[in-house]
């Protein structure tokens, strides 16, 4: 009996509905291809355009002042969201998490209590970025949040911070958020930057003409904060949050002096890095990006990933592409530009088109040209020095840097051995918050020249209820076939077992 491989559910499956995913979906749908878009959030937009549609419809005074505070870069997503929604042929599946992706284009999904597999002839990973994990003393206390979290609360929760607010870290998002808060009538007690004036000046040599607009924007933010009398320091080091049940104060060093401030909400940000959970579990090759102290997927310019499996072990060629911030941090404009490139490459792979146009590739280069300047002006700060022994590294399993160092010294000298021994990376977040710190600790302790590879990623990479597993849809019929073998021991048992005595 021959059982055929399951048919693809769509030409292309896109994971993530932010700027890159939406752009690619529209391009592919307009070219007549069937597209499924899976996204964790309830509405399209990704994190940058989170809840934009609803906020644009809100005509109340509060709604209008929120839109004004979030600024033109937020409203700029309206056109793309509208085009995405106008493509009625796109099979858009919101509130859907992805817990497995295979190089052959098979994707495991979960929506509510239902789960299953869908297959695409091509798959595009457009799942975006995450904020760099920043282990420091007290970072697990209630009242410590990332800048992205506070922005999400503004956009999708209509909550603004109150009380004594301290922002600490580096990067454009920190300054943008401080400005947005100020416009909403919230005055932070301090904006503490880890970058130094010397970083900013040194970065100037990376400036390209296309970088001047972001530079002017950034200087505008700084100017407005200064005018508003928001206290600001640069060169902040050794941040710590203190409190029993939640943050009560923060302390830090500036210019060799230790300072302590009362604090109800500590907002931290140390730049953003590609989210590697899906590529890592899909077995795609990752490369270590030293200056950014993070991994990123190894891809061709049009986003094609490389499976780490040797060719003789993979039945099908790898059909996974990576785009947007999940491939390389560049922000919304670069994500949209690359989403277009990836879509054109996918069309070519589906025998339809000549591949990315020179113009589309140039647009990516142009949008990314400001990155060398931003990377140099805002180098990793809070996460730069490795945490001291008492600081928690693995938030889920509450393991400290000291716990990990002790195990590494006792002989657990690769990532998977360390994980198996300590449970670091085995909690609900599956290593998203701790993996990079564990790898850097391992490199430091073993004096290795290069950062070690990640924990081996295995599905499910997000929790999935057992009831949903039991009722998985879309299983490969070849994997569920049951054969009855004639030579099983039970068939022979009558002959071999002594008959009971009469």
């Amino acid at each position, binding site marked *: 009996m021959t059982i055929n491989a399951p048919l693809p559910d769509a030409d292309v499956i896109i994971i993530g509905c932010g700027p890159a995913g939406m752009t690619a979906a529209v391009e592919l749908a307009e070219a007549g291809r069937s597209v499924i878009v899976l996204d*964790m*959030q*309830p509405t399209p937009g990704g*994190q940058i355009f989170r809840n934009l549609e*609803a906020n644009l419809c809100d005509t*109340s005074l*509060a*709604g209008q*002042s*929120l839109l004004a505070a979030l600024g033109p870069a937020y409203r700029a997503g309206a056109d793309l969201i509208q085009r995405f929604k106008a493509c009625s042929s796109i099979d858009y599946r919101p*509130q859907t*998490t992805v817990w497995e992706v295979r190089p052959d284009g098979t994707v495991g999904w979960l929506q509510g209590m239902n789960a299953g597999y869908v297959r695409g002839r091509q798959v595009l990973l457009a799942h975006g970025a*995450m*904020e760099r994990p920043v282990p420091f003393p007290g970072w*697990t206390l*209630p*009242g*410590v*949040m*990332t800048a*992205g*979290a506070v922005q*999400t*609360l*503004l956009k*999708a*929760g*209509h*909550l*603004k*911070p*109150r*009380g004594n607010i301290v922002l600490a870290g580096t990067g454009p998002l920190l300054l943008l958020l401080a400005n947005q808060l100020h416009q*909403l009538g919230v005055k932070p007690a301090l904006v503490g930057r880890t970058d130094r004036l010397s970083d900013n000046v040194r970065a100037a040599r990376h400036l390209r003409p296309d970088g001047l607009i972001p530079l002017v924007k950034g200087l505008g933010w700084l100017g407005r904060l200064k005018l508003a009398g928001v206290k600001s320091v640069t060169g902040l080091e050794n941040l710590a949050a203190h409190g029993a*049940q*939640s943050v009560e104060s923060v302390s830090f060093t500036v210019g060799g002096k230790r300072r302590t401030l009362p604090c*109800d*909400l500590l907002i931290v940000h140390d730049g953003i890095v590609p*989210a590697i959970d899906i590529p890592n579990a899909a077995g795609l090759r990752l490369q270590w990006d030293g200056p950014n102290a993070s991994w990123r997927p190894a891809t061709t310019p049009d986003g094609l990933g490389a499976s780490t499996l040797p060719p003789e072990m993979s039945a099908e060629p790898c059909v996974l592409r990576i785009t947007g911030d999940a491939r390389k941090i560049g922000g919304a404009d670069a994500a949209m530009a690359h989403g277009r490139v990836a879509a054109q490459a996918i069309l070519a792979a589906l025998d339809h088109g000549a591949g990315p146009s020179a113009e589309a590739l140039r647009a990516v280069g142009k949008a990314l040209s400001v990155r060398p300047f931003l990377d140099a002006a805002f180098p990793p700060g809070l996460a730069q020095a490795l945490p001291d022994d008492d600081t928690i590294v693995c*938030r*889920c*399993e*509450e393991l400290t840097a000291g716990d990990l160092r002790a195990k590494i010294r006792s002989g657990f000298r690769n990532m998977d051995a360390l994980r198996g021994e300590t449970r670091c990376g085995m*909690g*609900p*977040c599956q290593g*998203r*918050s701790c993996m990079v710190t564990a790898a850097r600790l391992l490199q430091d302790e073993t004096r290795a020249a290069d950062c070690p590879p990640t924990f081996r990623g295995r599905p499910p990479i997000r*929790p999935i*209820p057992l009831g949903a597993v039991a009722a998985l849809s879309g299983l490969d019929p070849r994997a569920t076939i049951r054969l009855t073998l004639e030579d099983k021991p039970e068939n022979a048992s009558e002959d071999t077992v002594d008959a009971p005595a009469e």
Partner: protein
Amino acid sequence: MNDPATCFSLSTASASEAAGHSPSPQPGSKMFSALAPITDAVTLFLDGQPITASAGDTVAVCLLRAGVSYNRLMPVSGAPRLPYCMIGHCFECLVEIDGIGNRQACLTPVRDGMKVRRQAGAPPALEPSAP
């Protein structure tokens, strides 16, 4: 919270009772204020107490607006945690929703009549069956 006896007793007690905190959500948050009053209100139950939210809010937003002091107590040390990333990466916002534990509050929209319980340490172990 590491004491197994405590963990066993949690099968019936709500997280807040087990932690010795007030079982009702605190009135308002010291960390956040709302930009606008609740619209299109739905009622859910937080540790048995009714609590209102705007339709379209996530459970995490609803709890932060109410000013809860934690979403869960850690299984290892019992330390309290509130949401950290709000975009589904950190898993700090885990709560029990309609009887199913470890749901990401930041990804789950509120629904009228939804039952939310904050988690207290390790989940209760199963009673050992009689020999």
